[in-house]
Every structure is written in C-alpha cells, then in structure tokens.
C-alpha cells in the first residue's frame, strides 16, 4: 500500500464512521408525509414534454429530422403572423392592428371563465425568496410576503405576513419564527422577534433554573400551562390576559426575571415535541438575568398547545449588546409596529389564508 492509498483509506474510514449510522429522522419523515399531500407536482407542458421525450428517444438522424421539422413549423407560423400583421386587408382577412403596450394588473388579464383553483398554501419560510437585508448587506432577509411556517409537530401550518428586513429563524424542525435584521452593527443577528413552538405533554419545568425539581403536572391545557409558568421561581409573571389568534382562544402572560433569577444558568422552560429545550432568552441571557420582558401567547389549537413568544420591547436586545451595541431605549420602537402587524396576520390551520 502506498502513501496515497493509505491516506484515502483513512479518509474513507473516517467518512464511513462519521456520526455513525444516520437513518432518516422521524421528524423529516413525518414532515414529508404531511407536506406531500398538499404539494402539487409540477407537470411539464404536454406538447413540449412529448416533443422533448420523442427527441430524447430518437436516433441521431431522426433527432435532426425532428428538430428540422420544428424549425420549419416555427418559420411557417412566424411568416403567417408577419404576413397577417404587415399585409393590407384582403378578402377574408381581418385587419390586425398593433395593440398599444400598456401595463395592466395581471389579475385582469384573463377574461375567460375558468374554475376557481383551491387556494394553495404559501411558500414555506425555507423556500421563500431572499433579498439583501440592507444595501450591501447579506442576502438572507426574506422578500416581503405571506409565508408558511413548517413543523411536523404543530397542529397545522401557520402562515404570517413578513415585512422587509426580517429573516427566517429556524434553529430546529419544530421551532421557527422570524427575527428583524440587526443591520450592519449586529451582523450575527438581532435576537429580537417572534417564534412559534409547541409544548410536549408533561414537559414543562417546575423550576427552569433547577432541573432536579422535575416536571410540572397538568400542563396540557392553556390554564394549566399558564399556572405552571406563573409559579416559576426566578420569574415574575403578569396576570394572564384572554386573547384570540385567528379564532383560537388562549391566554397571554408576560415574564420578567425575578431577583432570585440571579445565578440561574441554562434555564429550560419546556421541551418541544421534537425534543428541543426552550430557554429563557432574553429574560436570562448568557446566564445573566436581564430587565427585558417577553410575551407568551399560549393557544389551544384543537387540543394542542401552541406558544407564540415575542420580544415586544423597544430597547437593545442582549444579542445585540453582546455584539457591542450600546444601550438604546428606542432601538426597536419601529420594529414593534411591524411585530404587531405580523402577529395580526397570523393564520392557523383551517383558517382562510387571506387576511
């Protein structure tokens, strides 16, 4: 065995053993099964598809013949159009006048009646077109539009309207949202926005700062989860406010750090059905209690709990502060207006997609 063989052998052994066996995760399998029935296959245009298929199967001389035939047909058709357009009116032919070029809304373009198609779900955030967050900035902000959040562990798809300057935040398959871009001063991210997560049954901490205390009972209802969150040591909760999001009722509470949260490191609020631990950012960031407040909108969607977490405060976020941005009490004041517009646009499964 020479030196190269030895190296390639070691490399291939390494690649083979990397991470061990990695079967298709259930999260992906279930997401595919959920998405396939509502994803339309893109079919090739019939005539052109058949022509291409004929050409690909034909022998070389036959391919040239077919191609020549296509060219002849195109030339004949083109000539007919040119002759009609350029000739003076004759017997049996109507005058053709060039239509003025005007801009028109595309919705008015088709006067012929056609069956109303079933409204398709919007693109997922992962498939959304991207654009620069700001002139000269990274091309990873979403183009403004209505998009779908995708998770196999939620009760159904959620759609929302995204304005310019926001980007997808999807650290896990069942934990997704949008954050506002932090601009050139915060190139990593802003740490400010909205996220959606589900709550696994029986996976809410009794004390997020002390895992040895175990998990809270009776948290499978909105009231039960609110009660558990309101009694977390280390956190102060406002009284719950009844809310409705797209027809689904729930409660909203706002949490801040209590003085006893000092020294709380790696808090775990709850676990999602996909096994993700949701921490207390930005109430506790980098193991330090902050003065920020976070809103939790807890919804009962057909028996499943869905939580929308927002950082609805105007000041500089801990993530931005960690990037060297100084305290600014109004840094996100304008973003708060957009955040509320996003919240108002949220549609949960089964609801009409039009706002």
């Amino acid at each position: 065995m020479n030196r190269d063989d030895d190296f390639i052998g070691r490399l291939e052994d390494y690649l083979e053993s990397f991470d061990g066996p990695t079967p298709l995760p259930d999260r992906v399998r279930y997401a595919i099964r959920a998405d396939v029935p509502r994803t339309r296959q893109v079919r090739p245009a019939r005539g052109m598809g058949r022509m291409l298929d004929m050409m690909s199967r034909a022998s070389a001389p036959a391919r040239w013949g077919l191609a020549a035939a296509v060219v002849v047909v195109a030339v004949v058709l083109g000539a007919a159009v040119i002759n009609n357009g350029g000739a003076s009116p004759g017997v049996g032919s109507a005058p053709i006048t060039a239509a003025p070029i005007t801009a028109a809304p595309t919705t008015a373009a088709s006067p012929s009646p056609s069956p109303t198609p079933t409204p398709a779900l919007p693109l997922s955030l992962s498939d959304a077109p991207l654009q620069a967050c700001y002139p000269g900035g990274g091309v990873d902000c979403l183009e403004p539009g209505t998009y779908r959040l995708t998770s196999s562990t939620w009760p159904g798809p959620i759609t929302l309207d995204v304005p310019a300057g926001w980007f997808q935040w999807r650290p896990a398959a069942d934990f997704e949202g949008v954050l506002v871009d932090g601009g050139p001063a915060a190139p990593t991210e802003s740490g400010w926005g909205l996220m959606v997560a589900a709550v696994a049954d029986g996976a809410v901490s009794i004390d997020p700062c002390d895992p040895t205390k175990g998990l809270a009972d009776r948290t499978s209802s909105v009231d039960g989860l609110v009660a558990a969150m309101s009694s977390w040591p280390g956190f102060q909760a406002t009284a719950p406010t009844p809310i409705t999001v797209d027809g689904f009722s729930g409660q909203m509470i706002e949490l801040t750090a209590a003085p006893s949260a000092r020294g709380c490191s790696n808090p775990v609020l709850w676990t999602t059905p996909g096994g993700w631990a949701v921490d207390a950012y930005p109430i506790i960031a980098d193991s330090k209690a902050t003065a920020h407040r976070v809103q939790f909108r807890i919804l009962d969607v057909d028996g499943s709990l869905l939580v929308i977490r927002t950082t609805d405060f105007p000041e500089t976020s801990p993530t931005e502060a960690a990037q060297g941005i100084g305290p600014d009490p109004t840094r996100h004041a304008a973003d708060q207006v957009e955040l509320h517009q996003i919240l108002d646009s949220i549609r949960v499964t089964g609801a009409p997609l039009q706002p």
Partner: protein
Amino acid sequence: MERKLVERAMHGDEAAFDALVERVGGQLHSVARRILRDPYLAEDATQRALLDAWRNLPHLRDPDRFEAWAYRLLVNACNAEARRERRHRGNLRLLTFDGPAVPDHSIGLATRQQLDHAFRRLGVEHRTVVVLVHYVGLSPAEAAAAMGTPIGTVRSRLHYALKYLREALEADARLERNTGTA
C-alpha cells in the same frame, strides 16, 4: 431502485413516493450530515430535497436515474442550507440525540480528530465533492452531474480538498512528533 415505484410516484402516487423516501431518505440524510456537519441543517436539507423531488418528479426523464437525480437535489439543498447557516442558533439546545457516534476501530482516535478538524475547515463545495466521491462512491463524472458543475471543476476541487486534508494530517503529525521530543 425499482423503476415501477419511481414511475408510480411520477404520476402522483403518494404511497409510492413514501416507499421511495424510505429507500433513499436515510442515505440522503447521511450524505447531508457529512456535507453540512450539522445535524439540524442536514435534516432541513434532506427534507427540502425530498419535497423538491416530489414536486419535480414528473420532469424526471429517466426513472432509472432517480437516485442520481436525488443526489443533485440534495446537493442544491445543502448549498441552500449552508447559505443560511450564518444565523446562529442562540437560545436552543437539543435534549434528545440520535445516539453517540459509533466507535471507530479502523482508524486511530488521533487521526479521526485530525481529519475531523481539517474536514470542518473545508468549504462546503469541497466537502461535497469529497463526500460524493469517497463516501457515496460516485465517479468524478457522476459527481459533476450531481453538483451541476463541469467535470474539470470537480477534479480540481477534489485535488485541492485531498491535498489540503493530507497536508493537515501531516502537519498535525509533525506537531505531535515535535511536542513529543521537546
């Protein structure tokens, strides 16, 4: 891969596509993990590639080429995920794991760590070509088709990546020798 299964999925048979996912999904995910070096990005890339496959199956010209075509969709999906990677995942951590890495008896721990370190420093396009050729076992021509790049580009990327990995291993070995004799 059974041609009939692919043909049924091409005509909208969801059960047939589900069977295809079961057959190729694990391998696609394994490839994505090795290219992206991140389990969460790899999951997203695999999911994206499989949904793209379903959406575009009617355009597949030769059902016998399904697997090769799926690799191409996966490489595209990996590139897309890598572009999104810069957003960091600040306030989450995974509590459940797929399981620890299988102990590797064929190469030493030090070599594995050195390769791991060097492999991580390669760009995604270089990791892709190494994985396609030396893990999946594609020929450079097949890898070029999967990556949508000319075969010359694949050969040069492969040459650069292997040279880099070999030199990184040798440099680490030299460092160890020097440390050992100091």
